[in-house]
């Protein structure tokens, strides 16, 4: 496994809004012995357009992403269940029966969500740390139900103090553009989630998707909560505080 070459796909949100998560992901991968490349032409996978039904625009963005990734080699590691699922499942639908179908298949087959890659492919040992703090984990929907990821994060978090989070497999209410199209409903779902987070007694809320996490962190900040929000990559990289 030494020196395995991987491609880091950080996602548009990490790139623009949470670069620290990208750096943490990079650190974790390098520490795990990977040789990490970052295809600089990467932008957005197209999920925002796909989810609102603007399929043509989604296809343009997806085609760009495919072109950027297809000329690289090795596993494509993504610190997001949602964007991974977009590539792994929905790219195949978007390009079914087109001359990009093979390309979509190739790229989909190489794409791994971060925790999935660490546990399933690298066989990494639990390495997340959070000294003196308790952690609640939110399983984001697309990773959980779309890719069947759950055990991977659990394994990586074995050495931290986990607290039980009621409803940790229920949606946080983000839903992409849903959060601005139907903001009051989105926020009401979020509020129920945040009540549970605060009731859990956790110091840190951790998840695997920056999208849900920035929605939840934005809500916690608005409440003046002391709960800190971190991407699992940050705990794995030791940047918990």
């Amino acid at each position, binding site marked *: 496994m030494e020196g395995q070459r991987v491609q880091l796909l*950080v996602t*548009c949100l*990490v*790139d*623009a*809004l*949470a*670069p620290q998560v*990208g*750096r943490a992901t990079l650190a974790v991968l390098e520490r795990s012995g990977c040789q990490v490349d*970052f295809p*600089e*032409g*990467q*932008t*957005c996978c*197209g999920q*925002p*357009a796909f*989810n*609102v*039904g*603007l*399929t043509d*625009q*989604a296809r*343009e*963005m997806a085609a*760009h992403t495919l072109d950027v990734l297809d000329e690289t080699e090795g596993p494509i590691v993504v610190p997001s269940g949602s964007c991974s699922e977009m590539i792994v499942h929905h790219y195949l*639908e978007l390009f079914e029966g087109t001359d990009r179908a093979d390309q979509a298949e190739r790229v989909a087959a190489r794409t791994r969500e971060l925790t999935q890659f660490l546990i399933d492919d690298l066989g990494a040992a639990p390495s997340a740390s959070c000294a003196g703090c308790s952690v609640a984990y939110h399983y984001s*929907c*697309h990773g959980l*139900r779309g890719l069947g990821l759950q055990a991977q994060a659990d394994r990586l978090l074995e050495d931290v103090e986990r607290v039980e989070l009621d409803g940790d497999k*229920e*949606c946080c*209410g*983000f*839903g*992409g*553009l*849903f*959060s*601005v*199209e*139907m*903001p*009051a*409903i*989105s*926020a*009401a*779902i*979020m509020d129920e989630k945040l009540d549970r987070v605060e009731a859990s007694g956790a110091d840190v809320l951790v998840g695997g998707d920056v999208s849900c996490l*920035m*929605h939840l*962190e*934005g*809500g916690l*900040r*608005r409440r003046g909560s002391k709960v800190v929000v971190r991407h699992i990559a940050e705990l794995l990289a030791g940047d918990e505080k």
Partner: protein
Amino acid sequence: MSQPVSFVTRADALLGSREAAAVVKGIRHFTEARDRVAEEFPIMEELRDRARTIRLHSLRHLDRLLGHFADQVTALGGTVHFAADADEANRIVAEILQRSGSRLVVKSKSMVSEEIELNSHLEGLGMEVVETDLGEFIVQLAGDTPSHIIAPVLHLTRQDVAALFSEKLGVEYTDDPTELNEIARAHLREIFLRADAGISGVNMAIAETGSVVLVTNEGNGRLTTTAPRVHIALMGMERIVSRWQDAAVVLEVLARSATGQRLSVYTNVITGPRRDGDPDGPEETHVVVIDNGRSEILSGPTAEILACIRCGACLNVCPIFRTVGGHAYGTVYSGPIGSIVTPGLHGMDPWWELPYASTMCGACEEVCPIRIQIPSMLLHLRERAASEGRLPGWLNRGMSRYAQTTTDPQKWRRAKKWASRLSAPLASRGWLRRIPGPGRGWTQYRDLPRPASESFNEWWRTNRGS
């Protein structure tokens, strides 16, 4: 059918309401029971696969199965009617009732009768129609509409029901559930005995024997279909299976998914009218098979939604439904399934926005006993809405611009720079409390991280770039 107000308006009005609180409280009971019963039943997953196969088979062979079913019912002495739309269905039912001289009609729960607005049609003709499912009875008494396909009064508390009963039935106020049940029972029993005709829904029709299966928990279905002289069963045309074995499989997953029961309290099977020597049963039985837009759905990309067995499990786990309740949807079929069925039955206008009432969390598909691919059908409908130009202008324009930007890495770099610069004066310690424009809905309820002054891409090129 069509509602002038949008989903968002209705839903926002319900947020934090007494009604929404009742939904939250009531629904937990269903989901917990469903999970418990699914877990204790080792072959649940396998039966879900089989139920799916059975239902999809039915949809593929619908014409043949309905034809066979009609032949069997006719041979038994019953009558099958086919109604192309709501008007025709209402007319058929009214004619049967008028011909048989029926004036007092009892009904057991039937969602398709709500869909075609049968009650108001019959009442307009001077008939008295009494709902006998407890939930539907309450809804009718309150002049309300059902808010959940299997629990019509999920949005009411027992105190609401107590107040309603004491006001409308002139009984002393009690919020004891058993006593409330007794009050309804006593009131309805007398009506059952006087009723001229009974109208029921159909959970499943069985082609091989011409039987209709009715699942209830209260026994009102049995009284409705046996006590009066005339029984009329209403069914959506998709509600059929080939054989008895198939019905058994569907029943195994239906009650478990719906209420977390192993089996509903009553499973009635009605095979034709009263035969010579039968002690009871109706003299006439009719089955009205209703299309009302289903053929249209069947020929499109959301055809699979017709495999639905109306258990309501997807409603119970839907974060949107749980937060706002069924009335937000403005139509008979609410929740994830309703967001697909309603635009299919009644058209995209004004129902196109219902498929957007979803976070795409996938909880619905996870519990659906038929494993209907609900999220992917919601996406189909969103695609259709977008292609019909129904999305707001800012979204269309914004997404086109975003696509232009993100398909050109140079533009993407510049856009991030600009976003970071423009947001700088609005930000405090890296977060935005209020932004203008279409994103303001976000900051109305939560802070937004400010676009980073150095994107990851930039950081990489500075520190690691070749």
